[in-house]
């Protein structure tokens, strides 16, 4: 996800402008000059200024030269999205499926995506979730959901 400075600079300019505009529309505190609008507006203008400077390439000289990684195929670079997608999967299904099942699926897919062989990945998926459950549910009393597969303890 290597983007040019022009693109990230432009994103910052539009974000800053949106923040300043959105901030300016917040309702003021009656009888006071300074309210919830002041801070986001200052930040917004700051972001616009930074965005412009970045897009113009100012400050590049301070950056360390980019390390060239091996070229990635289009498909394998999509793999970086696996961890956040697995977290969304956890947020959506852990209530219904229960912690143990969700966690096992999550660990298995992550291990496979990282290049583990199916055997070790399956062992890890069976071993790690109960241990984590034991530590967090029993020792730290975090209310992890039971779902359709409750833990035996």
């Amino acid at each position, binding site marked *: 996800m290597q983007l040019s400075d022009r693109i990230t600079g432009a994103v910052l300019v539009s974000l800053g402008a949106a923040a300043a505009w959105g901030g300016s529309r917040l309702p003021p505190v009656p009888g006071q000059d300074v309210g919830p609008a002041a801070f986001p507006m200052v930040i917004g203008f700051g972001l616009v200024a930074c965005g412009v400077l970045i897009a113009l390439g100012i400050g590049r000289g301070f950056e360390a030269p980019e390390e060239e990684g091996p070229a990635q195929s289009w498909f394998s670079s999509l793999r970086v999205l696996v961890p956040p997608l697995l977290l969304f999967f956890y947020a959506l299904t852990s209530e219904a499926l229960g912690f143990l099942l969700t966690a096992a699926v999550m660990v*298995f897919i992550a291990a496979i995506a990282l290049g583990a062989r199916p055997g070790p990945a399956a062992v890890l998926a069976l071993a790690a979730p109960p241990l984590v459950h034991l530590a967090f549910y029993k020792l730290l009393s975090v209310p992890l959901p039971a779902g359709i597969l409750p833990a035996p303890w």
Partner: protein
Amino acid sequence: MDDLLEAIRLVAATDVLIAIFASAVYGLVVGSLPGLSATMAIALLVPVTFWLSPIAAIATIITASAMAIFSGDIPGALLRIPGTPASAAYTNEAYAMTRKGQAEIALGAGLWFSAIGGIVGTLSLMLLAPMLAEMALSFSTYEYFWLALLGLMCATLVARSSPIKAIASMLLGLLIACVGMENPAGTPRFTFGIPDLLGGIEPIPALVGVFAVSEVMRAMASAEPPKLPKRVFGSILAGQWLLTKKYQWQMWRGNFVGVIIGVLPGAGADMAAWVSYAMSKKFSKEPEKFGTGHPEGLVEAGASNNASLASGWVPSLLFGIPGDTITAIAIGVLYMKGLNPGPTLFTERAASMYALYIIFILANIIMIPLGLIMIRLASTVLRTPRNLVMPVILLLCAVGAFATGANLFSVILVGVFGVLGFVMERNGYPVAALVLGIVMGNMLEQNFVASLIKSDSDILPFFERPVSSVLAALTIAALLWPLGVWIFNRLSHRRITT
């Protein structure tokens, strides 16, 4: 004296001692695994600290961070991959020593001078914090505003990164802190009608996402690091006394610089190591040896990063302004445990403060035996396949985020911040500045708005009080520093070419 005895009693409690030992082992292992930084280790510890006594909670953070910063030197020396960013400054040097067959000296120097740096840093914390506490009692919102801003500006002075991108990262963090109802009017701000956002975005999911999830994402895109060949080490501490005598001056300079950088709000161990290594090279009698496996810079920078770790607690304990990303997490834990940062902490909770000092000293002493064991086990620990470690880390991210609020929305936030951190890192935007912006946003805004209301929207009173004018000058200096460096480089470059 009573306070000191009470402090010893607090630390000698069984739960505290177990916490210190367990977090030491945890910190050593996590710090030594490439890519898993000290900050990430601490962020994943937070849900655990919920269920510990206040002193035990602080003890886990102090011990784990000290161990992880040292242990980051191990893969740096053996594989040329820094275990934590604070080791990156001298990784090439340490690896060059290993290739010359001096792995023992490189690792031993990392361990020995880390422990010394940690102890010197602790002494400076004990000395400086009560002194500054007197002063801090008279601080008003103006001073707090400048201190917070100074902390943020120092956080943007990251080595090897564009200062403008760092400032943009920090502003982005401040903008994220704007979300929620905690603002001068108590109106929902930037919540987009999502009820989960009304309470604002908590720093912990952001930290876990930016430091841990983005690291798992990076592992997806990069090849597995090379396996460490099995090796048997000779005596590790043998040559260290000689080095201490030979490079005594460098060691003290490293300690001193580390302490100063640590006390500055916002600048932490990474910065201390870079500055000290550069300084060591600059003032060395034999600068040509640097980079070829010369221990001098290792001594100075290794002491420096651990010294900054302890003195980084000075601004955190006194003002609630983090010295670095690790203390940014620690401040949250302090509040949670009823040890609210502020100058009165040193008068009203003196025993707890003494306990904190004792833990620091203790952690740096047990670092030596445990560190020796860790170095000997390193080839085994570092053989753990990454594709089996990272999935567990990801699971811990989900559970840890859920545990902080018993709320699945935080798990989604962790994922979102993972993507944000990954994209930012890839494009040269330093994520530490983002995190400090998120942590300090509310404080900065409160003091900014309160000061403006007091002054009737006049800017002048911000500079009128003596301490606030000094802090303002420092802040502006930090802002203009990169410009100065740029002009200096231009001028000296011209002198060379003509």
